[in-house]
């Protein structure tokens, strides 16, 4: 079995799966429990806030130092658009990976850039949304809704940010011509993580924003 082309560090694995890929899948499996716990925390405290503002209904809340009537926090159209953008980015990274595997540099760099832009747009949307909610009276410690909502979506945003940093790193490699087809796995690993971050949002969006 000792042939010169196989690198000694990477003998064929017992399962046939690539070791790094298996590690990412394993990590993702563990991350599922991380987000499951955060989502559970949000659901457990749903409807338990002592004061407003509330996600879907008008309420009494403290704004600029006085009790006033507050409108519902969530505005579905913007976040729906952000969700769509994030979903499309998952599609784009598949196209980029396809380009990397075929050695099509243009396809790779184009779609990978598009993925990163979508990710940045999503983070921008989240920053805008947080600010907007804050001005509507929902501070981090205002009530249980605010705390559990910002904690859950904040951790998701942090994961998206890490994903963007990872994708940008791979993009720089691609621009320098250091992502030949035989190294496409370097993109695939980042893409797997990116899909995961996306899928988590697919759970958060209906459970947090749509479910009343």
């Amino acid at each position, binding site marked *: 079995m000792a042939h010169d082309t196989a690198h000694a560090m990477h003998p064929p*694995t017992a399962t046939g799966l690539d070791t790094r890929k298996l590690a990412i899948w394993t990590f993702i499996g563990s991350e599922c429990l991380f987000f499951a*716990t955060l989502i559970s925390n949000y659901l457990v405290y749903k409807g338990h806030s002592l004061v407003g503002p509330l996600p879907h209904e008008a309420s009494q809340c403290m704004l600029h130092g006085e009790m006033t009537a507050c409108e519902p926090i969530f505005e579905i159209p913007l976040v729906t658009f952000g969700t769509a953008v994030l979903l499309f980015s998952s599609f784009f990274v598949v196209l980029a990976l396809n380009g990397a595997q075929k050695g099509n540099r243009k396809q790779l760099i184009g779609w990978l850039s598009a993925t990163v832009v979508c990710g940045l747009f999503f983070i921008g949307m989240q920053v805008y949304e947080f600010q907007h909610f804050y001005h509507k009276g929902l501070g981090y410690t205002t*009530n249980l809704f605010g705390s559990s909502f910002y904690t859950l979506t904040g951790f998701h945003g942090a994961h998206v940010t890490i994903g963007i940093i990872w994708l940008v790193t791979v993009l720089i490699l691609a621009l320098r011509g250091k992502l030949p087809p035989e190294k496409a796995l370097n993109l695939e690993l980042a893409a797997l993580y990116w899909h995961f971050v996306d899928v988590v949002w697919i759970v958060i969006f209906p459970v947090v924003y749509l479910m009343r």
Partner: protein
Amino acid sequence: MSTIAMGHAGTEAAPAEKKGLWSWITTVDHKRIGILYGVTAFIFFLLGGLEALLIRWQLGAPDKTFLSPEAYNQLFTMHGTTMIFLGVMPLSAMFFNYFIPLQIGARDVAFPRLNAYSYWVFLFGGLVLNASFLFNAAPDMGWFAYANLTSKQFSPGLNVDFWIIGLQILGIASLAAAVNFFVTILNLRAPGMKMMRMPMFVWMSLITQVLLLLAFPIITVALVLLMLDRNFGTHFFVPSGGGDPVLWQHLFWLFGHPEVYILILPAFGVVSEILPVFSRKPLFGYAAMVFSGCFIAFLGFGVWSHHMFSTGLGPMADTVFSLGTMLIAIPTGVKIFNWIGTVWGGSIQYKTPMYFALGFVAMFIIGGLSGVMHASPPADLQQTDSYFIVAHFHYVLFGGSIFALTAGAYYWFPKMTGRMLSEGLGKVHFWLMFIGFNLTFAPMHILGLNGMPRRVYTYSAGMGFEFWNAIETAGSLILGFSFLVFIVNILKSLKSGEVATADPWHGATLEWSIPSPPQEWNFAVEPTVDGRDPLWELRRANGGTLPEPARVSGKGIHLPSPSYWPIVTAFGTAMTLVGFLMHVTLWVILAGLAITMIGIFSWAFEPADH
């Protein structure tokens, strides 16, 4: 056993032998990392033992003032936290590190630098946790840190914060290691080593990694929420803001119950290696052992509320969790049956590892039986918060895990060091530990049923607790002394012990096919495996003897290069989290993040091998 050559044809120089402190700091060799884990964990274990002795000294007689109530609270909290996270878990990690690659016939783990990272993060976590003593602010709310003992209102000092941050750092170490070992076991098995041919220790380790992967994210989130409550003013566990303290209990035990299997399953694995070797019989019911292990792990995620019967969850929840808990007795009983079946009719070799392994089976049965007793809510309501519970979990954790890990230490010490431990001192160690352990913990059953509460720093004279407490304290001194014998045994052996052959016990598994201690590359040629007990098959084919394997030059064998980026990244990781310790110290967090980022990028773009 046929063999297959592996690695490049020898054109490169043999790797130089590595010495000195720097070589330990930069090592990525799983065997050296295993030794680092072992030595560090043993020191923490002795520290935890010292804490226990102080507790026992205080309780030796009624109304003692040797310890203040505050000091007592700190000591029992740190004793529990230390023994679980800095003692038993990393002692298991020592065996994972050293013996998983050897038993599956691999050169190293899947990610050697990640392995080094895990160790350094573990070390920093242990240091942060224990640094609390320097600030006279050791955690003091019990190892499960129930809300709202942990709220800023009732615990304004740094005690709880040290616990949160220390555990958070240790959790990262455990998760990184779990990913690594999970992938290693699945992917790096030598040709022919199918899943159902893996040594039982590797099987139990694999299941433990799954538990770690699924349980630790839960405590991570729980700790984050608690930290937010304390430092950012949220109310997740604060009733005045609508929060529910019972949610903490659910999150903690959702992690905490799988955690007890994380502590015991590696011990099951160790004993399942030792009993067959010293009975000269294959493990009885191999497949049943595998599946009962899986079943225990699966059920382990569905019984967390049996720690919460006294919370008042209602008859339905109590019934479900009670039945689930009793169900665990079945796979556990299967395991005990199979261990006895393994020894039954065997040609038993009365060596020290066997003494400890048999001691484990006996003590674990006692702990298991008392566990089934408080699976019943009415019984539990009598027993909870009393010394009966303390007796139970010491019989499974000390009588179980520590006896098994000590058995493993005697069994594998020759492989790790190339020296035999003294059999005489080993047996003295065993009898002292066995007698000391039972004198310390058996009377706790009686005291608990007589109503002596846990976690109270003293008791009044005339309550009928004096006699057994005095016996327990005497027992604990014998127990402590037994470990001095162990240390003397180790030191004597390292200095002038009998030189160990490759296979001093006539072992069945691959680690005994290579020299003691193994060379850096483990296997000069990759082994292939045809059955469950490859070395016994080879020995049989060879007419009962095995030739002593020669030490080879290792010329041309590719090994991962040493790297200092794991320790740098680990330092950055720990620093980032320490930034959340007191209040948010932004510069510490940002500097920590910067170091972590630099570490990760340098690591990712560092060439991985020579």
